[in-house]
């Protein structure tokens, strides 16, 4: 492969984005699938995408959108599950992290997206809004509701964090 920067961009960002996508999907295999698809799309458009300030943000946005689309086709996934058996086990996690993952996975997708972008990726509310094409008020209310739901599941108090 010609060294046009794609390989090094890929190698330096893959694991980080995979963690973020895992937090959104709650399923490592699904996260790998949408992320690799997003990188594949970035690759064929690399002359353009590579010129962006943050190619990583482009890949993340595409992958998050793909994850949302996959999330909406629950019925298809249910059929695939019947055909293929249970999904592969998620990686070994300590009990508190399993609780965290489950609490996150119990949220509606919209809340999961904003929580991950704000608290894990570290984007300010305004950037989360533009990334997901939402109003900032929507982002704030989803953040608050998502945090409240997770805090009550985990019996913690996150009401003060923003």
């Amino acid at each position, binding site marked *: 492969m010609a060294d046009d920067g794609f390989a090094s961009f890929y190698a330096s960002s893959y694991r980080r984005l995979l963690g973020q996508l895992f937090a959104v999907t709650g399923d490592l295999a699904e996260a790998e699938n949408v992320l690799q698809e997003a990188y594949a*799309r970035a690759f064929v458009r690399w002359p353009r995408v590579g010129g962006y300030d943050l190619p990583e943000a482009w890949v993340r946005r595409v992958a998050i959108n793909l994850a949302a689309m996959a999330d909406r086709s629950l019925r298809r996934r249910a059929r695939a599950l019947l055909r293929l058996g249970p999904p592969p086990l998620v990686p070994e996690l300590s009990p508190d992290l399993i609780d965290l993952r489950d609490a996150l996975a119990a949220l509606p997708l919209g809340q999961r997206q904003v929580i991950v972008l704000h608290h894990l990726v570290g984007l300010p509310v305004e950037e989360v809004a533009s990334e997901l094409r939402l109003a900032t008020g929507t982002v704030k209310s989803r953040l608050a509701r998502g945090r409240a739901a997770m805090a009550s599941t985990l019996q913690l108090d996150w009401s003060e964090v923003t």
Partner: protein
Amino acid sequence: MHDLDTRLERLAADATRDAVVPEPEAIARRGRRRRRRQLAGSAALVAAVVAAGLVLPARLADRPGDHPVAGPATDVSEAGMLTGHWFGKADASVFLAQHVDPARRQAIHDRIQALDVVDAVFFESRQEAYDRVKVLYRNRPELLVHVGPEAMPESFRVRLDNPAHFKQLFLALCRPAEGASGKQRCIRGVDLVSDIQAAVKPLLIGKAWLARSDLAVILPGGTTAAEREAVRARLEAIDGVRGVV
């Protein structure tokens, strides 16, 4: 650093600790495969549209002498979009092979014209085919980015005295495909002969409707209820129309 932030970071890090990072070459292959599929997809779509002649089952359009009560063809075609240039004009398409010299083309034309069941023969050039497809896909220009006029086939569009006589035309030019996946074998210079009505129906109409109806009039997006009723009234006024659903 907030508690939620750090916990999420640990979750992300721990969950992906053992993940295998695929080689970048694998990602590149996936991207190229995807792009090839897309190109093939848009080519197939264009081929299907060309094959259909952008024509609805044309029995409703006014053919001189056939349906004296039908309104001008433009009324029906405006309502029934895909305003196929061939709307109401042709029943069959004879697609020519890629490189056919003018003499051979004339010979094929004469052979079609000489058939008893043939009413009229029209020629469509690559450019004309391309212009039609361009109009049809004016809202999806990306589909045509990789396709130019040279990708379009030349064709004769044939009007039969009765569309049920397609088979006679077909057998004059081709032998049926052998086996389910076989390709038609046609005389030199002819690539494919297709029945416009048969080609269009499954493209436009749900299969369930095929059993219940003979043809569809497709309304464009944004059609008002009043316009819809006007079209319905026009359809019901046509001799030989038993019902409009």
